[in-house]
């Protein structure tokens, strides 16, 4: 049998993480119930845990809710909020709404892609640390160009400024461990 393992960051290779996440999936299913209407909230919480929706977990959820894996896959790919690709620990969203675009969101994005060596369609670093995305209008046009890193908003970005912020994050991240 071909083995498809969950992709994880190096420090997550300990089994306990797999176990904890899987327990969480079951806790979520038990708490929200096994009805079709619970599917979207379940996917949301599970995505928080894994930072994306792994195929085998979607199949597991389909089994638990007595749905076909194809229909769960359909829901998971319909909403932009769900990702079927692993995402980085830090998700960087660059606003590309009109205001941000006009005030130079592109160079900011280019700087990030270059720094993280993200070419072609690749949007997440190999160490699963950073994901770079563009979004349309974050609703903070006064601060344009705006960048959202996880839950934190950074305004009036320039390539230099974003690089400093990333330096800072990397430093904190290293200290965390």
């Amino acid at each position, binding site marked *: *049998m*071909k*083995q*498809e*393992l*969950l992709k994880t960051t190096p420090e997550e*290779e300990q*089994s*306990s993480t*797999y*176990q904890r996440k*899987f*327990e969480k999936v*079951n806790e979520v299913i038990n708490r929200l119930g096994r009805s079709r209407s619970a599917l979207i909230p379940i996917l949301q919480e599970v995505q928080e845990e894994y930072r994306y929706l792994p*195929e*085998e*977990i*979607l*199949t*597991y959820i*389909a*089994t*638990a809710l*007595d*749905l*076909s*894996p*194809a*229909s*769960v*896959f*359909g829901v998971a*790919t*319909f909403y932009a909020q769900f990702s*079927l690709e692993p995402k980085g620990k830090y998700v960087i969203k660059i606003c590309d709404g009109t205001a941000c675009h006009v005030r130079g969101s592109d160079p900011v994005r280019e700087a990030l892609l270059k720094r993280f060596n993200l070419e072609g369609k690749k949007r997440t670093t190999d160490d699963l640390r950073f994901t770079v995305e563009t979004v349309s209008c974050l609703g903070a046009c006064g601060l344009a160009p705006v960048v959202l890193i996880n839950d934190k908003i950074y305004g009036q970005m320039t390539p230099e400024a974003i690089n400093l912020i990333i330096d800072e994050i990397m430093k904190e991240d290293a200290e965390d461990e």
Partner: protein
Amino acid sequence: MAEKNSVLIDGQVVPLNGEKSILELTRKIGIELPTFCYHSELSLYGACRMCVVEIEGRGIMASCSTPPVPGMKILTNSPRVQRVRRTVLELLLANHDRECTTCDRNGTCKLQDLANRFGVKKIRFGERDLKLPLDTSSPSLVRDPNKCILCGDCVRMCSEVQGIGVLDFNGRGSSAQVTPAFNKDLAEVDCVNCGQCSAVCPTGAIVVKDETDRAWAAINNPEKLVVVQVAPAVRVALGEEFGLPAGELVTGKVVAALKRLGFDKVFDTSLAADLTVIEETNEFIDRLQKGERLPQFTSCCPGWVKYAEHNEAEYLKHLSSCRSPQQMFGSLVKKHWATELGKKPEDIFVVSIMPCTAKKYEAGLPQFTTDGVPDVDLVLTTQELARMIREAGLLFDQLEVESFDTPFGFTTGAGVIFGATGGVAEAVLRAAHELVTGEPIEQVNFTEVRGFDHRKEATVEIAGQEIKVAVVHGLANAKALLKELKEGKVHYDIIEVMACPGGCIGGAGQPISTSPETKKERAKGIYNADKLSQIRKAQDNPVVTKFYERWLEKPNSHAAHEALHTAYVNRSRINGEQIQLLTSKQKEQVDVAVCVGTCCYLKGSYDTLNKFMQQAEAAKVTDKINLYATFCLEGCEQSPAVKVNNQIINGVTPDQAEKVFKEKVLSKLE
């Protein structure tokens, strides 16, 4: 007053009689509105907008999903309607791979037909340049996403009628597609190859795999003796491809056509069906007397067998161990007849003409191949045979009838009715009483099990014992029946299941037709053929008796088991997926897999898994175990199933978990 309960269609007063949609109403008055996503046997979807009409005061509406309201004024062909229809077609065509000449559905494509009918001459929108890869993984079907118009017919067919849900929409907007889960190939998921999705697809986005070239190659190979068997349902449908009415019995012409095409011997699968009746009835009587493995399920439909292998692991032992007639035939030809002819099995090339796409898959199963030689070398559908006849330029309707060759040519009515839902059950009923008591019975017609109801039931007396029979067709109906069976709501002794609605006559390899009337006519043709048969009961077939004398000793003998029976395996719903929970880094390690597939999950396998994790932690061996959750262990007998290294342990309920973990896992680490 007439107006009170009527509407006005194109100026004509039309009374209402409880029609659910305007579409239904227009069809009654002889107006054929175009549709893509409307099928009377599927739920309403109302997305293609092809069926639009103009309603005064409400504008353009989809007629399939708009109920008629008294007093409505409806126009079915106004300039606005015409404009909208053409635009819809143009938009669909702009996104469609328009390589019509090389498409399998050239001539039977609804999109092509409607574009022609509504005079679309020019596509104003740009062509899409993206070319998606074809899915040729299935032994039965080819999926070409570039031809999909997103009508969703296949999605609803597979989930509503077949109860499986292999296909669904994914993505959205311009990147929306219809695919199996996770964009996998059909062969990697729980598709049963019934082909019903292809039968409703209006375009060439899902088609039957064309293998006519292999047939020509065999025919033109002087070293091979090429024999062909013809399934019962083919003879009431092939005529449709050549302008004859549905249900017309064209057996003699089919035989003549096959001989003209160059097949050396033309045989009848119905004879093998007679043999199936004898084997299956004896098996049933044996189980009945022992009181074990009841209800017995039929096993001649490969779509149903695969469905059971994916979803009903615990009922697999209830399936009759009989091979399908197609495989019984192949096996007899290659194992016994070849020897009599002094030929090696590989010198004979066996072709089947089947109404069914799943038969292509069945013929390729490893258990039906001996030393690299398959019992059945090639399966062609009715559609493919029609293509060969056209290619050879034979005027089918003018062919002089011919009869089947011996020895596989003589059949009874019992073998013929296999082609319609209820047929196998009826054939078994014609045999059972007689085989138990030795006294002949008068009754040959068991009409309760005929027809198109979702579930048909009959109670008959066999040697003083009441036997309950159920017949279902369409796998969603089988699923519902199994659910009630598990809940103890129903009780049956023998159950016939056919995957396709209507049975084999409604197989996806048959000429394409979306009218429910077609299937009814074909069924009528089958029962007519039965009525006209000299012999109606399988047990009276003299050729079958001779086969037992020559090759098989007696029903269910060792020789019969070797040649005519088989075994089943359970299969996961999606290939190769599992959830890793513990990974061992130590040299000394144990692999532990807990199944979380549907059956096991429902029986509490998650709790078993949980207990294993707790035990592993308590015993401080989490680093010595590879623990994962899988979706099928392929070989279990009783849920919840667990696999430790290579040993499958059945029935590990949560309260057994601790004991099993200690005895089977910890013991290996001491």
